[in-house]
């Protein structure tokens, strides 16, 4: 089916998400469940990736800056900006598209093929709103925390790498990461994380919701969810950078 078909159906789908929840108590329960399953359970993978990427970024940077004219603390500064501007928002969100996106698509897809969504609809419940809104809000709420956490752990990884390889002395690194620090870079990253959270949750829910057939199709939906939301993230990353930083 054509791209335009999907864009149209996706738009209608997103509009249905933002209906008023039927019962607030039930909504709150689902929201907390999703904060846990989509957010808190992603902390581990974000932490591991951040510490290693922070270390590698620092290492690579220090290996590539070998001119004696450039002071050592520059390594800290460059690593900091790479981590804050791109790694902790874009790359971490790409990882989360895999972790969270496939989770959302397969959960909702399974509910579709086992007729659980029909069961909700037949009760007169707006199934899109009931199933998807808690997930979207949970992602939008928790992703910025994950991104900030990733920044901290990434910098820690960089500091450790500099120390352990002996390439960047601790004092230089710490001086470097504080040098001409622009707080807007953090804000920029947080804005991106919120937008990416929205993309991942809605796009993945869309593919799950409109899957049909059986277990095989749920697998396909889940792959589509990850691929399409990853591409969207890359496209929007360009767009947001263009809008906010230039």
């Amino acid at each position: 089916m054509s791209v335009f078909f999907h864009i149209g159906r996706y738009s209608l789908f997103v509009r249905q998400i933002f209906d008023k929840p039927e019962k607030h108590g039930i909504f709150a329960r689902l929201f907390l469940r999703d904060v846990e399953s989509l957010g808190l359970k992603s902390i581990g993978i974000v932490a591991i990736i951040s510490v290693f990427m922070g270390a590698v970024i620092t290492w690579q940077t220090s290996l590539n800056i070998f001119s004696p004219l450039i002071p050592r603390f520059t390594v800290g500064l460059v690593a900091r900006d790479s981590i804050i501007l791109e790694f902790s928002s874009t790359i971490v969100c790409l990882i989360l598209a895999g972790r969270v996106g496939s989770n959302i698509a397969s959960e909702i897809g399974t509910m579709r093929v086992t007729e659980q969504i029909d069961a909700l609809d037949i009760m007169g419940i707006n199934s899109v709103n009931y199933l998807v809104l808690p997930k979207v809000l949970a992602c939008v709420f928790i992703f910025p925390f994950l991104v900030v956490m990733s920044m901290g752990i990434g910098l820690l990884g960089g500091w450790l790498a500099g120390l352990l390889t002996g390439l960047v002395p601790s004092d230089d690194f710490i001086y470097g990461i504080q040098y001409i620090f622009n707080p807007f870079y953090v804000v920029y990253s947080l804005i991106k994380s919120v937008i990416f959270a929205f993309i991942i949750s809605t796009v993945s829910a869309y593919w799950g919701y409109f899957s049909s057939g059986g277990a095989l199709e749920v697998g396909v939906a889940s792959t589509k969810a990850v691929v399409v939301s990853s591409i969207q993230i890359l496209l929007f990353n360009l767009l947001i950078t263009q809008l906010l930083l230039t």
Partner: protein
Amino acid sequence: MIEIVGLRKSFEGRIVLDDISASFEKGKTNLIIGQSGSGKTVLIKSIVGLHQIDDGAILYDGRNFIGMNSLERKNIRKEIGMLFQGSALFDYMTVEENVRFPLDMFSNMSLSEKDERVNFCLKRVNLENANQRYPSEISGGMQKRVAIARAISLNPRYLICDEPNSGLDPRTSIVIDELIREITTEYDITTIVNTHDMNSVMGIGEKIIFLHEGVKHWEGTKDEIFDSDNEVLNDFVFASELFKKIRRVHSLAKC
């Protein structure tokens, strides 16, 4: 009573239901029978509005479902209990939470009233002591019972069942069929049951509609089914050796 008039439904140009008219009576188990792929599921899903139909009318005690706005539809849907082929229980909820769910969503009952209602419904389907288990931890027959309990929790006026005994052994099938029939007469509701199981037809076929390739070919009761000279129907009903024998005995008895 539910009536359908001139109902048509197609998927991407392929006609799946062609000009179906029928009425399903109150206090009776109305059966829709036919081979796999004959359009039974599409028909009941059209009746409850899960599929949009191309043409026709669907009347719930005279109220035309097709002309309704979304709020009116929502209100009708609260009067419908539906039993899905695979039970469609919410798998992250316990048995008790599944039955309680419609009450949580749509009733203003107090907590203790809800507890009472949940226990009543579970008791009605003879399922006690499974309250805290998850659907994946109970047998298919038990899942069906939970699904029935969930379907009746809000005291529906209409009960719609898609292949209630698919995947069940013959004994459990009969128990589930009987349960559906008892509930139908006890609460005087309009029940529609899809099935391709001849045992169900013989057991609870108070009114039967026979579908073949999306067309209604016959209607009658389980007693009339033996005397029909409709060939398509006979091909379906007397496909098995067992039913061929029964027909022979039946015609001998009449001589």
